């Protein structure tokens, strides 16, 4: 078992909000979906469009969440893979350590990835790296881990990061922020597994769902960035949902707004930016007990 430590955050009991009609955009809904071509075979796309939002919520004065949202396209089209880095970190550790930890993690991870991939992707003579994308991501996580230990000793944060390169998506995950794939047909699938102690106990049959919901240690994570010798991140590869969305969010969203509502808001809003705004509104409407951060990514052929 990994070193267990206490997060000093607290969470409201998971509520389901009935948010009947999320305000829609002028260019609304399904019509916009319908303008997107159905992708038949292995989809090639040239663009990633994304949105992000960050809100302290209704009960917190400080913001311990941090976001990185970056995408780029370069070159003449088909042959140049679309590129994106999307990260959410949710800090913990009391005082200012939580804020510092998440901010540091996001910057350290982002700058490592950009530094490593800048020349291979954007240089005059683009060349794939010798290292694999998973190895680069692993190194970036360890870099962020070292930075957090240095800048916010005793603090820590969750980290859910996606590196998108063409059709490939590499995810690194620690803690209880989440990445979801939301498909056009309405399926919503969690790509990550929470590293939360209570969830683990629940999985092991030691706790019932009812007990877990009121468990005093329910915000304790058994894995996080900035804790222990090495950050034991889950690192895995998948295809970016296409057509569909990649959603990354902190527990300020998923712990407060029901998955069905998240799925409906995302699927009914053509612009990822507006969808992120609506998700934050939904979390705030449900009490906003925690910081809310969300990144939403869509591939456009």
């Amino acid at each position: 078992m990994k070193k267990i430590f206490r997060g000093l955050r607290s969470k409201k009991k998971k509520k389901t909000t009935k948010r009947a009609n999320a305000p829609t955009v002028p260019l609304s809904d399904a019509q916009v979906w319908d303008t997107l071509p159905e992708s038949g075979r292995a989809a090639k796309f040239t663009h990633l469009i994304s949105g992000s939002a960050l809100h302290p919520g209704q009960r917190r004065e400080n913001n311990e969440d941090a976001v990185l949202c970056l995408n780029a396209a370069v070159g003449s089209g088909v042959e140049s893979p679309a590129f994106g880095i999307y990260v959410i970190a949710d800090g913990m550790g009391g005082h200012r350590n939580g804020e510092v930890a998440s901010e540091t993690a996001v910057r350290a991870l982002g700058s490592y990835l950009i530094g490593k991939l800048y020349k291979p992707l954007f240089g005059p003579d683009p060349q794939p790296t010798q290292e694999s994308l998973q190895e680069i991501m692993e190194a970036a996580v360890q870099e962020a881990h070292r930075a957090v230990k240095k800048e916010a000793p005793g603090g820590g944060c969750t980290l859910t990061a996606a590196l998108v390169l063409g059709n490939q998506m590499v995810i690194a995950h620690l803690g209880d922020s989440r990445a979801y794939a939301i498909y056009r047909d309405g399926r919503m699938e969690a790509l990550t597994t929470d590293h939360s102690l209570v969830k683990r106990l629940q999985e092991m049959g030691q706790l019932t769902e009812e007990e877990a919901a009121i468990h005093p240690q329910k915000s304790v994570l058994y894995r996080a960035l900035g804790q222990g010798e090495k950050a034991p991140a889950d690192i895995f590869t998948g295809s970016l949902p296409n057509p569909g969305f990649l959603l990354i969010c902190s527990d300020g969203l998923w712990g407060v707004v029901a998955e069905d509502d998240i799925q409906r808001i995302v699927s009914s809003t053509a612009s990822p930016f507006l969808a992120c705004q609506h998700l934050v509104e939904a979390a705030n409407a449900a009490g906003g007990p925690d910081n809310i951060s969300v990144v939403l990514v869509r591939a456009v052929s």
Partner: protein
Amino acid sequence: MSEDQSTRDLDIKEGGTKYSQLKKGDLLQDRYEIQEIVGMGGMGAVYRARDKNFKAIRLVAIKEMISQVTDPVIRRNIFQIFEREANILATLRHPSIPRIYDYFTIGERAYLVLEFIHGKNLEQLLAETQGFFPEEQVLSWAVELCDVLEYLHSHKPEPIIFRDIKPSNIMNTIQNYIALVDFGIAKVFESGQKNTMVGTQGYSPPDQYRGEATPRVDIYALGATLHHLLTLRDPQLEAPFSFSERVINEINPNVSKEFAAVVERALEYKPEDRYESATEIKEALINVARKTGTLLHLSIPTTPATTRGVSIKPLWTFECEDEIRGAPAYHDGALYVGCYDNNLYALDAATGEFKWKYATDGGIPGKPAVFEGNVYFGSEDTRLHVVSTRSGKVVWTHYTEGPVRSSPRIAEGHVFIGSDDGNLHALNTTSGRLAWKADAGSAVRSTPYVSGDYVYFGSESGDFTCVDFRGNARWRFKAKRAITSSPVIVDSVVYFGSMDSTLYALDANSGWVVWRFRLGKGSISTPAVAGNLLYTGAADHVIYCVDVRSAKEMWRFTTDHQVTGSPILHRDAVFCGSVDGNLYCLDASSGRMRWRFQTDAPITGTPVAHEDVIFIGSTDKRLYTFVA
């Protein structure tokens, strides 16, 4: 089948509630000769019998059910339920479920003829054991039981809930795999009659007493069975639902906490607190095995000697005049296989009967491809040969400037094949005209893969190339040593191994490396991918199973020599040959060996599967066929 007809075969002594058992030598249906009683159930006996229809000794298990109901309507209903259940069994196909061969009724007796499972049930093993079973043994049984439950619960159109998992219904065969026996037929039989609870007190969950039949009922009973096996405390002798009072680790401290936790969760009082599905608990168990290190033991067969040559026999074999190093190809009832006696053979796939052979001037190392009535294959005589499948006569040939050790791939009206002359050749299938050659700089022995508008192949200098349909390179990747392994593409990721001891996953569109997996030694084996799992062999004797998302090893199976051939997947099993001469059949999810067959020389080729028949060539000059 009418009762009048069937009663002719046997004189049944009717006598109120009493009935007589069949005796040794009794003949049922003029076909099944009773040898002995092997078990007694509430509704009748189970016999071992010999099927006299076959000259070879074929043993069957015959289950007898005797209805003592005199009311003809109720009795007909009981037989109908029985018949329906027998029909369900007839649709089941799983290594851990006995096959049903026949059923019939004779008067008030109904009979099921089943595959005879040679072994002991777990109740017998519990009675005989001197101490606790080793954890890995119980874990391995548990994973196999989950596997069969997963199969039953996903049965279409209706899931099948076994409802009576308990040690006496689980056989441990002499080949050391698990078989589930007694498919609740007796229970349905009985319940139609007396309306009693189905299941066994002690092993059945509370919800089953409410008449619920959900997958969670079987999961609880599985948990109860595992609890019994781990603690040796018979739940039938204890208060119902009192497992939590008999903490596994307190009774048997040898059991890992992880394993105990899985069993305990399966035994939760409330169904919703248990594992949701057999798949879920199976994954949890495999995780336990991985964490406690027992997974590696799982793949080690405990009684390998018994499988050798005893239960696994080829359906037919065909002998050539020299080594078979490549793979056969199946097409439309025929099997095509190249040999180092320079011939390509066409055989009848069902019987192994020789149809024709076609002589080249060199050994034939690859796997033939069949397309529109012609069979395509390369030879070390430097040619690609195209031969009519019907006549075995040449249609056209194409000369390269080196031996052809790659296998042909056919797509978009073209055949793509590599040669030791350092080129990938693209030829029009009808005219045989060369469309283009792509220079790879060194011998191309890897078989090209065609996906979308691109062709992918490796070369002996370690270059991996993606070319378009005009032969222009789109991207290149360089490994440190030869890429003889043939690429496979799934979901825009191309997988192949290299002699540099690495298994690679590359983005098919850009050539970026997604992940690398370190093998113990170099590999020329071609990966097989199913779902999230990839299987491949390497020179370190190992057959690997790797998760394609995380690049983590799921299991490994170590053979006695290099694995140069490639694994294939058929249903839930992996088939792979080894230079140690064996063809191995492994459980795809756990890597546990189901059986192996020893040929007389190294196997370097790849098997091929068609409708549950596995074909493989060996360098002992023979082609073998097996029932999967």
